[in-house]
């Protein structure tokens, strides 16, 4: 089957969005406070492609029943989702600065009925795919055609419930579910494997009845093609294993386990913002 690639202009526009998202993420986290820099930045391109390329979504009506759903199962990476929702004007961009503050709608982990556009409560790891399955079943029972996308961390795959859910999706033929694995290779303390064998990951998902595709999770063209493939697949649910870099986009954070949930200094913050602004500038120039 031939696959339609995203146009160069659309791709350049999308890359701009991702660059802007990274800037918002680092700015909202500020300095001297512990935040999940690593996982938010590894997931950025995936979340960007979902909201700005793939999902059927009306930012003016985040409760529109026909909308596609996104569940951030790796809930600590929610700043990436907040950045996308703010850029879509689901809530004001200025609100990003309230992240994790008392009284803020932007809680440290995703909370439905609190942040507009957030579809479920996650943060205790391993629960998102089951929730996504439930939403997909609800779509079928109510004759809606929406898709449900669930982003799961590779460290999160240690949670047994992920595999319970991975058995449920094909069993109930929930082909409107797409699981995306953010395989950045690191968890809170060290490598995601920590001696437990996650590989061969593709074969593991396939053995549960999923169609699987591996991609570069920072290559937006590949991400878009994979998302189109996943939602066009009529026979079985699809899993996308996205190879990513934890902390992608900020040189001193990339691939450092120490930045799973840690503060950066004001100077580091300035450096990160400078790097990301330069990147955004390059992307904007490419667009023109």
């Amino acid at each position, binding site marked *: 089957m031939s696959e339609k690639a995203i146009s160069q202009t659309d791709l350049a526009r999308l890359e701009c969005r991702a660059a802007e998202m990274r800037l918002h993420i680092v700015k909202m986290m500020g300095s001297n406070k512990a935040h999940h820099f690593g996982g938010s930045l590894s997931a950025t391109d995936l979340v960007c492609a979902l909201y700005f390329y793939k999902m059927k979504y009306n930012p003016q009506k985040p409760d529109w*029943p026909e909308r596609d759903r996104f569940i951030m199962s790796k809930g600590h990476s929610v700043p990436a989702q907040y950045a996308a929702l703010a850029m879509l004007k689901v809530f004001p961009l200025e609100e990003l600065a309230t992240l994790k503050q008392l009284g803020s709608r932007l809680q440290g982990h995703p*909370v*439905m*009925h609190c942040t507009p556009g957030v*579809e*479920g*409560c*996650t*943060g*205790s790891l*391993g*629960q998102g795919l*089951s*929730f*996504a*399955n*439930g*939403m*997909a*079943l*609800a*779509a079928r*029972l*109510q004759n809606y055609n929406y898709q449900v996308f669930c982003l799961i961390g590779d460290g999160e795959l240690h949670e*047994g*419930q992920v595999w*319970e*859910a991975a*058995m*449920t999706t094909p*069993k*109930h033929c929930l082909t409107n579910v797409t699981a995306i694995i953010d395989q950045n290779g690191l968890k809170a303390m060290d490598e995601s494997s920590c001696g437990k064998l996650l590989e061969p990951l593709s074969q593991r998902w396939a053995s549960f009845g999923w169609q699987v595709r591996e991609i570069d999770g920072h290559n937006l063209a590949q991400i878009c093609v994979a998302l189109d493939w996943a939602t066009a697949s009529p026979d079985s649910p699809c899993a996308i294993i996205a190879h990513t870099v934890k902390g992608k986009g900020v040189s001193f954070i990339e691939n450092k386990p120490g930045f799973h949930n840690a503060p950066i200094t004001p100077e580091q913050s300035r450096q990160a913002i400078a790097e990301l602004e330069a990147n955004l500038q390059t992307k904007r120039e490419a667009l023109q």
Partner: protein
Amino acid sequence: MSELFETRMVYGDALLELGQRRHDLVVLDADLYKSTRSIVYGESFPDRFFDLGIAEQDLVSTAAGLAAGGLIPYCNSFAIFLTGRCYDQIRTQVAYPALPVKLIGSSAGLTQGPDGATHQSLEDISLMRGLPNMTVIVPADDVETRQATLASADIKGPVYLRLGRYPTPRLFGPDYQFKIGQPTRLRDGSDIVIFATGHVTAKALAAAELLNNQNIQARVVNVATIKPLNREAVLGQLDGMRYVFTVEEHNIIGGLGSTISEIIAESAQVPLRRLGVRDTFGESGTADELLEKHGLQAEGIRTSIVETLT
């Protein structure tokens, strides 16, 4: 001996009744649908019934997704697996967003007797009542089970409905109307008041009859809703009472005894004693033997009360 009724059978029929009335109901089970009686619903509405297999955590989280999608899911499993194993899923994905997931804990208390401590739930009320947004209902007989099941669908948020397994006497007449939060006086008396919940309410009533022979007049109040519980209605039962007793098939820590104690400690000065399982795990035995061991048969309740008063 009055006729006995098995509440889980009544639950299955009530679920079916709900299914006939409401098309937004979905029922989920985790490989125990014959025992929980959700099979009754599954046979009539196979398109709205899902067996998630032996995966209770997946069961609860899937139900949360269904509820977020606009449906009313009923989750069925043994009480301790549902509340204990899935406490985190219930807390994060059901209670926190106040989704209308109905958790039906079957074979609660000591009623799964011979299977031993792993299958008995003596901590489930405690776990569920500690969760914000959660309604906790423990029916005493078949009439109340049917009404509580029907009422649960209309409660906006999550509900934990605790069901026993063994046959139990009917305590309520055809005119009974279950009301969330409202305790019901089953027997009047002027000396002491016994608050009881669930299947052992019948035992408390029988104990009150025995106490009558010793000139102790016991009022018996059934508390079907552990949370939310109308505190004024509880305090209203205390007029002139020498002593308050609570009776439950649950650990005395965290269940009905704790609930009533908390209300009384803040507002009244009546001594209180909690009767129940005294902070220990269960073991294998028939339900009757276990109730006797823990002093929850009528004679055991009578003895504890007399000892306390003398």
